[in-house]
């Protein structure tokens, strides 16, 4: 199966549970090596010896990657040092501000509400200004205002020329942002192309593909 995402585009991947959506993102993020085929980021393959291409990737997983006993600021500062950013403190401040978490920057993560946790996780994923942002079911558990806010943030990322790959079991929340859509079923593409204008028609087609 092939996948090609360019700057300023957003590919939304739908698929039922167990279709391999999370595996797809882990492959793209370089957390798994493909058993066949290859992943290239700006023409380069991330390998054990050359972690460089990893710099271009940001992953918002359903795990937050945050340490519960550290504050958001401490978590981000540590992440900034992992990425070798020249100004960890400045990057931390900027990222916290972007997601609107400055007020709670020094509260240990374990005391944050679900919505704030999600913001901290977003800040962590965006901290090193990745060119490619991978999103795994990012709307799960967000209330309507938070989801609106998050959509605005994603639109801003697209406007800055970043490439986005989003996987979800339903695409309604991200539909307007997506430039391309694909359906993953049983580890293969069942459908792939530019986003059609009609969500309802897509849903009907999706149901047909997935449920036979």
């Amino acid at each position, binding site marked *: 199966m092939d996948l090609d995402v360019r700057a300023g585009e957003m590919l939304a991947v739908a698929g039922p549970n167990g279709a391999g959506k999370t595996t797809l993102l882990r492959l793209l993020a370089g957390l798994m090596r493909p058993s066949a085929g290859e992943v290239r980021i700006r023409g380069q393959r991330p390998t054990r010896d050359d*972690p*460089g291409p*990893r710099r271009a990737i940001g992953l918002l997983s359903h*795990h937050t990657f*945050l340490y*519960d006993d550290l504050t958001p600021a401490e978590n981000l500062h540590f992440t900034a040092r*992992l990425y*070798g950013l020249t100004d960890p403190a400045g990057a931390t401040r900027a990222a916290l501000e972007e997601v609107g978490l400055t007020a709670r920057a020094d509260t*240990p993560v374990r005391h944050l509400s679900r919505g704030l946790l999600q913001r901290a996780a977003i800040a*962590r994923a965006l901290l090193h200004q990745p060119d490619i942002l991978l999103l795994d079911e990012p709307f799960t558990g967000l209330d309507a205002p938070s989801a609106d806010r998050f959509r605005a943030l994603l639109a801003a990322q697209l406007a800055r020329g970043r490439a986005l790959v989003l996987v979800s079991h339903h695409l309604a929340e991200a539909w307007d942002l997506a430039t391309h859509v694909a359906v993953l079923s049983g580890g293969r593409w069942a459908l792939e192309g530019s986003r059609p204008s009609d969500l309802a028609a897509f849903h009907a087609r999706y149901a047909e593909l997935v449920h036979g």
Partner: protein
Amino acid sequence: MAEFLRIAFAIAAKDIRLELRSRTALLSAIVFSALVLVVFNFARDPTALAAVDLAPSVLWVTFAFGAVIALNRAFYVERENAALDGILLAPVPRSALYVGKLFANLAFVGVVEAVALPLFVLFFNVDLGHALPGVLGVTALATVGFVAVGTIFSAMVVRTRFAELMLPVLLLPFMVPPLVGAVQVTAKLLAGRPLSEMMGWLRLLTLYDIGFVTLCILVFPAVVDE
């Protein structure tokens, strides 16, 4: 190289900060070590065996048990919220992750030993005196070796069921050469024997440290990279 060490230090500093904030693992390891010393005291027949004859073994068995408890936590913190994936996602050489964890573990085991040593002197009425620098030296030499092995094993067992049981089963055979060496050298130091009698053991300990730190750095990527 500077980049490598910078990342390793960042990881170690993060671990130390986390541990200072929760303190549970470190405190348990210290209390456990104190208890081992107390148990040893009552497990010996005071009329048959002088405390000082038993002292080197007691000291090292205590250090070993304390270290196993402290090492169990090493990768445990990386499990919450899949934090390890967060590190692996970053452009971090896997060996730098290993070295960072090794630094943090050496700090924890060092703290446990630093508390257990004075307790040992107190409980067993051992006069370290001029042997102290030597004992500290051999402690450092032996600790680096088994913590190096323990660090890589703790990264594996954290992914298994029964992690707390699995670590000692895997690690204790690997602890034997450094422990035997450290006990022998400590006994000779306490008895005021000349350095030449310890050279064989010191060579063994040094070789073990170099051999296993190198090997662990080489194979660690296979532990974390899918």
